[in-house]
């Protein structure tokens, strides 16, 4: 055990932890984006609400979710520990700042990470905490006529406070009663400053991952002429362009829709 402790307390061990937790968070982003793209379906939030319900009621996902929260915390704490160590390694700074061609994002990962941590706290408070631990989120009832596949939607008031979401079929009509997280999304993203926070955070994640994704592979020691360009391509286009843009599009689209109503 002490040998493992020594390994993970070494400079390279701490970097390994940063890389592994960072890459796990990257894979989570893909899953999170996949689910959230349901927000773009024009179905009164039916598929999004069912998806949110699935996430919070399927045990394996819940286990992975807690692993994910642990990764966020460990990644942040190790970042702080490493930053303090790095600062101490140069007690007297330079009068003329280094003019090497190192990219801006590579030199400001801590700042970008702090922005993201702030964002994650706000985001989890509004969508995760309220959904799971409060009764602030209202319910919706979706009735789908299985013969015609027509869905109607209505507000649903649960009989008791500890009401659990249900799916039932009566007279060839499927009735789904779920917490209406979609309504939270609609109200949150009708607020301009909230939309701005989200879009800025997605900008931060783009720059953070532009450097972080390929840097994690370097830390793991996976550098090779053949696949390093592939890693850099994925890090740039998928993690720094496509994913942040699609995420940022959600608050923007919902804000524009709210202006029309």
């Amino acid at each position, binding site marked *: 055990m002490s*040998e493992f402790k020594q*390994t993970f307390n*070494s*400079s*390279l*061990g*701490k*970097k*390994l932890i940063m890389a592994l937790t960072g890459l796990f968070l990257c894979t989570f982003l893909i899953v999170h984006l996949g689910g959230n793209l349901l927000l773009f379906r024009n179905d009164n939030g039916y598929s999004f609400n069912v998806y949110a319900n699935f996430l919070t009621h399927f045990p394996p996902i819940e286990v992975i979710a807690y692993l994910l929260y642990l990764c966020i915390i460990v990644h942040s704490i190790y970042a702080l520990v*490493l930053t303090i*160590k*790095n600062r*101490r*390694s*140069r*007690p*007297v*700074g*330079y*009068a*003329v*700042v*280094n*003019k*090497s*061609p*190192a*990219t801006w994002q*590579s*030199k400001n*990962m801590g700042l970008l990470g702090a922005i993201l941590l702030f964002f994650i706290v706000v985001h989890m408070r509004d969508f995760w905490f309220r959904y799971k631990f409060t009764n602030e989120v209202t319910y919706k009832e979706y009735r789908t006529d299985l013969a015609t596949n027509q869905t109607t939607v209505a507000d649903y008031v649960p009989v008791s406070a500890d009401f659990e979401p249900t799916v039932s079929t009566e007279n060839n009509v499927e009735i789904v009663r779920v917490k209406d997280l979609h309504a939270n999304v609609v109200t949150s993203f009708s607020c301009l400053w909230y939309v701005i926070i989200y879009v800025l955070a997605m900008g931060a994640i783009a720059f953070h991952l532009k*450097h972080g994704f*390929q*840097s994690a592979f*370097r*830390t*793991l*020691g*996976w*550098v090779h002429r053949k696949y390093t360009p592939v890693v850099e391509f994925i890090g740039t286009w998928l993690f720094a362009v496509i994913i942040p843009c699609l995420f940022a599009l959600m608050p923007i689209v919902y804000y524009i829709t709210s202006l029309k109503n």
Partner: protein
Amino acid sequence: MEQNNMNLTLKVWRQKNAQTPGKFVTYKADGISPDMSFLEMLDVVNESLIHKNEEPIHFDHDCREGICGMCSLYINGHPHGPKRAITTCQLHMRTFHDGETITIEPWRAAAFPVIKDLAVDRSAFDRIQQAGGYISVNTGGVPDANEIAIPKVIADEAFNSATCIGCGACVAACKNASAMLFVSAKVSQLGMLPQGQPERYSRAQSMVAQMDAEGFGNCTNTRACEAECPKEITLTNIARMNNDYFSAKLFREEHIHENNG
């Protein structure tokens, strides 16, 4: 030729010893030939200081042909000055323009304490090297040259790593004062060759342990070191070192049996 000579203003870091805080002192360097090296220019300044009965500026130098790794100096925000892939002794005054103000600082790192003025104590590098930067060779008859076949690609790569002169520019350039480029070059130059295999994994472990003990920072893959290295040592070395280190720590422990004392 006289009219081509340059008049410069130097802002030089003067510090009595590691215990005393230092400060910048401004000197005039007049009538400097553009064909002088940077160190020759400092020699001229020191001559005039000696004539005025002032303490000359202390700086490290030895071979003055770019191979010993003794000269240092952080010039206008760059270790070894603004030109790529040369040491300070190979830097000529024609790189600067007449009337320019040049700021000269020592390498700044907790692990490189200032001895006096611009000279810093780089014996931390010696201790890292002594911790594992060697191979074991049997005494006896001289082995045949080319007895061990080594692929050209490997020989070239090991030789590229071996060109590191241990000047410490990587530490000086790194925003974290990390020594990982130096250590990884030393790990690689031996670890890639057949002669370096017996100690390959213990070498990576002991050199990294010594590096950590000396108080250097942690690599964040900004690539500033690679850009400023006078011998153009590449960042790939760091990935290679990480690979050897993690292999050693996690998969190649010497005592593999549980009760092997």
